[in-house]
C-alpha cells in the first residue's frame, strides 16, 4: 500500500514539480539536476520542498545579495545544540545564490544597512530576473563522508548554472547610486579547495563545516510567500529543526542592529566574517588572534597584541587593536586593504566593506586603555 503511494507521488511529481534530488556520489554538471530551483517565467523559482532563509549577520561578499536555502530529506530533522550549533542530517542540501540587483542592465551597489540582504523574493516566492543578475550558486551537500562543496556558475543568459570546480574570475562594475564613481573589481568565484579554505573551520580534521546557520544567526523574522514568521519557530513547526532547549529571543547577533552596543555588534561582525579561520582551532590559529564570540582573553582578541606573521599586513602598526585608535590598529588596516598580501579576509572579497570598517572602527575608538605600559624586568 505504502509502495503504491510513493510511486503515485513520484508520478504526480513528474508532471508538475520535478522535486529535489540528492546526489550521493555524482556531481551533476547542471545545477537544475538537483531540482532545488529553476528558471521559469523570468524568475528564479524555488522548489516547494526548499526552505529559503536569511541570517542575522551574513559574511560580506563584495556587496552581493544572497539567496540561501536549505533542504532535508523527508522525515529528517536537524538538531540544535545548546551552544547554538546545529547538527544537520545526512542528505541535507544548502544552497547560496549570489546576485546583484540590476537597473537598466547595470549592477547596483547597495548598502547592507537595512533590509537589503534579505532576499527580495516576490509574493510568489520567486526572484525576479529583470531586477537581479545571478552570479553563482554554491552548494554544501551532506553526504555519507561529510559536507561536500560544489560551486555552480550561472551562464550569461541566466538560464542554467554549471559546475565549475576551478571557480572563475568575473569582472564586475557596480554602479553606486550615492557616489558618481563606479566600483570596478574582479569578483572571484572560489574553486572547490577555496570553499574549504573557509568552511574547514577545524584544521585538525579539515572537515568542511557550516558557518552561517546557528540558532543565534537564524533567530529572525523572514517573509516567504506572504507569510512572516520567526525562522526558528518556522523550522521547528515544519519539522526541519529540533531544539533541546529554547533559544534566546533576542537579535543578539545582528551587527546591523543599532539597538545593540558597539561591542556586541562588532564582535558579531568579527565572528561571522573572521572566526571561521581566526579561532583556537581554525586555520589562522597560527596568528594567536581569535575573533570568535567565545574568546574572552583580550590579547587573543587582538587588544595590544603583536603581529606574528603579518608581513605587509601590519600597515606599519604595532598592535592588532590599539584601544581608542582604530587608525593605528592592524585589524582595521587589513579590513581596509585591497593588497592581496595584506587584506583580510584573505579571500572572498575584492572591495572594502565600508560599513563593516566603520563599525569595527567605532568599536575600537570606544575601547579604553593603553598598550604602552613599559615592562622593565630588571
Amino acid at each position, binding site marked *: 500500500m505504502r509502495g503504491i503511494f510513493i510511486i503515485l507521488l513520484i508520478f504526480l511529481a513528474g508532471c508538475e514539480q520535478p522535486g529535489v534530488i540528492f546526489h550521493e556520489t555524482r556531481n551533476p554538471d547542471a545545477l537544475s539536476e538537483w531540482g532545488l530551483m529553476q528558471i521559469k517565467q523570468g524568475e528564479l523559482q524555488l522548489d516547494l520542498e526548499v526552505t529559503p532563509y536569511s541570517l542575522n549577520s551574513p559574511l560580506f561578499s563584495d556587496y552581493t545579495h544572497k539567496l540561501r536555502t536549505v533542504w532535508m530529506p523527508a522525515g529528517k530533522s536537524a538538531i540544535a545544540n545548546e551552544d547554538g550549533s546545529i547538527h544537520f542530517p545526512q542528505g541535507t542540501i544548502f544552497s547560496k545564490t549570489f546576485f546583484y540587483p540590476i537597473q537598466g542592465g547595470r549592477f547596483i551597489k547597495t548598502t547592507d544597512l537595512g533590509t537589503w540582504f534579505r532576499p527580495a523574493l516576490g509574493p510568489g516566492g520567486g526572484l525576479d530576473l529583470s531586477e537581479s543578475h545571478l552570479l553563482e550558486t554554491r552548494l554544501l551537500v551532506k553526504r555519507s563522508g561529510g559536507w561536500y562543496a560544489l560551486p555552480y556558475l550561472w551562464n550569461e543568459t541566466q538560464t542554467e548554472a554549471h559546475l565549475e*570546480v*576551478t*571557480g572563475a*574570475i568575473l569582472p564586475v562594475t557596480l554602479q553606486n547610486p550615492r557616489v558618481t564613481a563606479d566600483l570596478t573589481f*574582479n569578483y*572571484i568565484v572560489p*574553486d*572547490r*579547495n*577555496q570553499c*574549504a*579554505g573557509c568552511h*574547514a573551520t577545524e*584544521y*585538525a580534521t*579539515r572537515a568542511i563545516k557550516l558557518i552561517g546557520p546557528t540558532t543565534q544567526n537564524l533567530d529572525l523574522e523572514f517573509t516567504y510567500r506572504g507569510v512572516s514568521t520567526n525562522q526558528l519557530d518556522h523550522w521547528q513547526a515544519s519539522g526541519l529543526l529540533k531544539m533541546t532547549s529554547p533559544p534566546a529571543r533576542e537579535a543578539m547577533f545582528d551587527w546591523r542592529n543599532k539597538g545593540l552596543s558597539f561591542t556586541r555588534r562588532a564582535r558579531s561582525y568579527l565572528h561571522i566574517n573572521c572566526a571561521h579561520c581566526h579561532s583556537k582551532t581554525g*586555520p589562522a*590559529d*597560527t596568528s*594567536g588572534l581569535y575573533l570568535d564570540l567565545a574568546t574572552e582573553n583580550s*590579547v*587573543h582578541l587582538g587588544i*595590544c*597584541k*603583536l*603581529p*606574528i*606573521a*603579518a*608581513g*605587509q*599586513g*601590519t*600597515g*606599519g*602598526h*604595532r598592535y592588532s587593536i590599539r584601544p581608542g585608535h582604530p587608525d593605528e590598529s*592592524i585589524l582595521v588596516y587589513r579590513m581596509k586593504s585591497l*593588497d*592581496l*598580501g*595584506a*587584506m583580510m579576509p*584573505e*579571500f572572498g572579497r*575584492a572591495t572594502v566593506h565600508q560599513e563593516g570598517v566603520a563599525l569595527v572602527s567605532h568599536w575600537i575608538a570606544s575601547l579604553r586603555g593603553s*598598550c*604602552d*605600559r*613599559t*615592562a*622593565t*624586568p*630588571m
Partner: protein
Amino acid sequence: MIDTKPFYQISSPGFFTQACLTIATLLLVACSGQESSESDMGKQLQIQLLNAKPGDVIKIPEGRFEFQRSLSLRVDGVTIQGAGMDKTILSFANQLSGAEGMLVTANDFTIEDLAIEDTKGDALKINEGKNIIVRRIRTEWTNGPDTNNGAYGIYPVQTENTLIEESVAIGASDAGIYVGQSRNVIVRNNRVEFNVAGIEIENTVGADVYNNLATNNTGGILVFNMPDLALEGMRSRVFRNQVVANNTANFGKPGTAVAGVPAGSGVVINSNDLVEIFDNDMKHNKTAHILISSLYSTNYSDRESVSNFDPFPETISIHDNRYEGGGDRPDTEYLAALKQAVFGDEKSFPNIIWDGFINPEKAVDNMLPPELQICVYNEVATSVFNIDAPNGFANPRLETDQHQCRHAPLPAVELATASI
C-alpha cells in the same frame, strides 16, 4: 681560519635573473608553444590539484606559467614535480586573488624542482601538515628587495617532520625561508639572498639549520620566539653555514618582528632557549656576526601580554665558528653610537653582542647561572659584548669569565620521513 671560497661570485644579484632570462629565452626559441596563460595550463594544474588522490605525482613541464589566482592542495600524500627551479616557473606577477602562490594543507607532501615568482603575498605556504619535503624550490621576487614584496618565500607553519633543502629564496619582505610553530625541522643546503631575514626559525622545537648560504639579507639566520602562540620554541642548531655580508638595508614593513633587525646581522637569537651555533663561517656582517636579545629589546618591548612568555634567551652555546671582518659599521643609531663610544673609529664590534637582559628570578649575583649561560668556546675571542640595554646602555662592557662554560651538545634532528 679564513675561508676563501668566492661567495660573492655565486651570489651576485644579477646572476640569477640573468640565468633565468637565458633559460626562458632558450625555451621560447626551442618550444614556442610553452608560453602559457592561466586559461589552459593554470586551469589544468588547478584541476589536478583539486582532484588529486593520495600517491599522485603531479608533474609540471618546463615552461613559464602565469597564474591569476592562488593554487591550493588539500590532499595527503601528493608530490608536485617540476622540471627544475630554472625551468618550471609559476609566475604570479599578475595575481588577482589569494594571499599566497600555493597553499598546502596536507600531510606527506613533497614539492620539487620548480620556481614560484612574484606572488603578492607568501610564495609557498604549508599550513599544518606532517612529513613535508621542499626540495630544489626557488621562491623569488624578481624586482629585488622591496617592502611591497610578499612576506615569506618558503613558509611551513605548524608542521612536523619538515625538510627544506637545496632551495633558493630571494627578495622576501619578511623571511626567505620561515619555519613557524613546527616540530622536527631540517633546513639544509639552501641559498637565501636579499630577504629581510634569510632563514627564520620561530617558535619551533627541534630545528637543524646547516650547510646553507645566507648572504645579502638584512639578517642571515634568525632563531626567534614570539609571545601569545601555542608553541614556544627551543633546541635549534645552526651549524656549517656560510653567513656572509648580510648588509641589505632593512626593507621590512614597520610593525613586523623582523623590521627591528639591524642591517648587518649574521645570526640573531631572540627570546629562544637551547640554541647551539657552531662551525659556521661568518663574514662581513657589518653590525655583528651574532646578536642575542630578549623580546624586551626588540621594537616589541612595551607590552603587557608577556606574562606567560619567557622572553629571555637561555642556554646558548657558541663554539668553533670562524669569522672575518664585520662589526665595523653597525646599523641603527644607538648601536653606532655604542660602537663609537666603546671602540672608537678603528676597532669593530666584537663577534658576539648581547642585550644583557636576564631573568631576575633566575639570576645569581646578577648573572645567569652556568646552566643558563651564553657559553663561548673554541673561538678566536671568547668574550661577549654586553650592551647593558636594561640600564639604558649605562655600562656596556666586554664580558669573558661568565661565558667560559660548556653546555652538552644538542641532539641532531631526526626526521621520521621515509624518502630522505
